[in-house]
């Protein structure tokens, strides 16, 4: 067993430099690395490129890093749940690259699987295809897309062990597993950190080999965006 534990979020982000390329797991506010985002905020690291499906809301998630103008560029599939984001985008302070959600997921997966490029049908004939190589397979047109990799991948899991093995919960899994594989350094925060042997090897979602630093988050707010109930 190789022990990946660090003392907490602050130690985990300690060497993240200005202008780093980060991947951040989560879909909407579900399964986001809340504690690590707080540590990035505190550290004040600037000029970040953030690869994440969404950009949070005004006062939560990546939205917090937008408020402090720590983000130079967002690479995402769906953004703009917040006013500050829109203001920075329209004023040209923030660069935004929009990628179809499945292509984003697959590009992260490719980054972690050593596949430099692949073909997907998403975006053929659209703005997304501009400047990209297309090719026909079995009569259908596909775009060539490249892998995405990050200097630091930051993911959030439900349970993890000292060896870095991760188990996600519910739809909080989303982009976390692929992003965990695509980081040069991968930081995992978990709700519960357990000793090796406590997790069933058969139930691991992210094998520890992909995780370089792991810690138990101090507090999880787990904010809900759309609180829909049935009577």
């Amino acid at each position: 067993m190789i022990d990946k534990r660090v003392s907490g979020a602050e130690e985990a982000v300690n060497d993240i430099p200005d202008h780093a390329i980060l991947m951040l797991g989560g879909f909407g506010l579900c399964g986001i690395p809340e504690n690590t985002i707080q540590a990035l905020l505190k550290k004040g690291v600037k000029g970040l490129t953030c690869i994440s499906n969404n950009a949070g809301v005004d006062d939560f998630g990546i939205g917090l890093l937008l408020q402090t103008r720590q983000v130079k560029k967002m690479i995402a599939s769906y953004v703009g749940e917040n006013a500050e984001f829109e203001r920075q985008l329209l004023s040209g302070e923030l660069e935004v690259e929009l990628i179809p959600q499945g292509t984003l997921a697959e590009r992260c997966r490719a980054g972690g699987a050593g596949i430099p490029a692949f073909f997907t049908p998403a975006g053929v004939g659209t703005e997304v295809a501009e400047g990209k190589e297309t090719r026909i397979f079995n009569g259908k047109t596909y775009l060539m897309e490249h892998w995405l990799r990050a200097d630091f991948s930051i993911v959030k899991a439900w349970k993890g062990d000292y060896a870095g093995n991760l188990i996600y919960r519910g739809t909080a899994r989303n982009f976390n597993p692929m992003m965990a594989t695509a980081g040069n350094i991968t930081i995992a925060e978990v709700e519960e950190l357990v000793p090796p042997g406590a997790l069933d090897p058969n139930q691991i979602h992210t094998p520890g080999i992909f995780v370089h630093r792991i810690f138990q988050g101090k507090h999880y707010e787990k904010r809900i965006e759309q609180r829909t109930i049935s009577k």
Partner: protein
Amino acid sequence: MLDKTGIAKRIAQEVKNGMYINLGIGIPTLVANYIPQNVHVVLQSENGLLGIGPFPKEQEIDADLINAGKQTVTMMPGSALFSSSDSFGMIRSGKVNLTILGAMEVSERGDIANWKVPGKMVKGMGGAMDLVASAKNIIVAMQHCSKEGASKLLKNCSLPITGLKCVKKIVSDMAVLDVLPEGGFRLLERAPGVSVEQIKNATEGHLLVTGEIPEMKI
């Protein structure tokens, strides 16, 4: 003219036993409410869930369980959870049999535009481009015309495209139409109280009307 509920009810009639279905945000989400009990289907949420159940009761709410519209949901027995890459894998490989989504415009060749309005804030395509590029069967829920009365069933989309030649069927507030493989909208049904003439006037793209056009049964 149908209201949103009416459109959802009519689309629910297209749902067949054994289908795996992805429902977009808005009217498509409502369709789930009108699928008959004896029609067994599984709803897929592209963030990573097969087997979406009803919205939770207050005490069941779980922040770790949301649909692609970021709404809290529950799971049906026999559900499965997975990553977003696995999710779009099943979408691209055609395992999701039916995709129901909204549209701002559809062209007579089945092109769809539903992600961007130039000059307005761009929020992103989310999973829409993957879904329309991959689904074998796409039904669009939409308004036939804009508030100003301009047709949204066009010769060519004026808005940025989400996908080419992908829409198979449209259920609008005025009509049910097929998009023909060779191009053109074939009128299948009229909304209650709507005439063929009204539909003709509201459809800019090529409209094919053959024989008697029945009124929808909802």
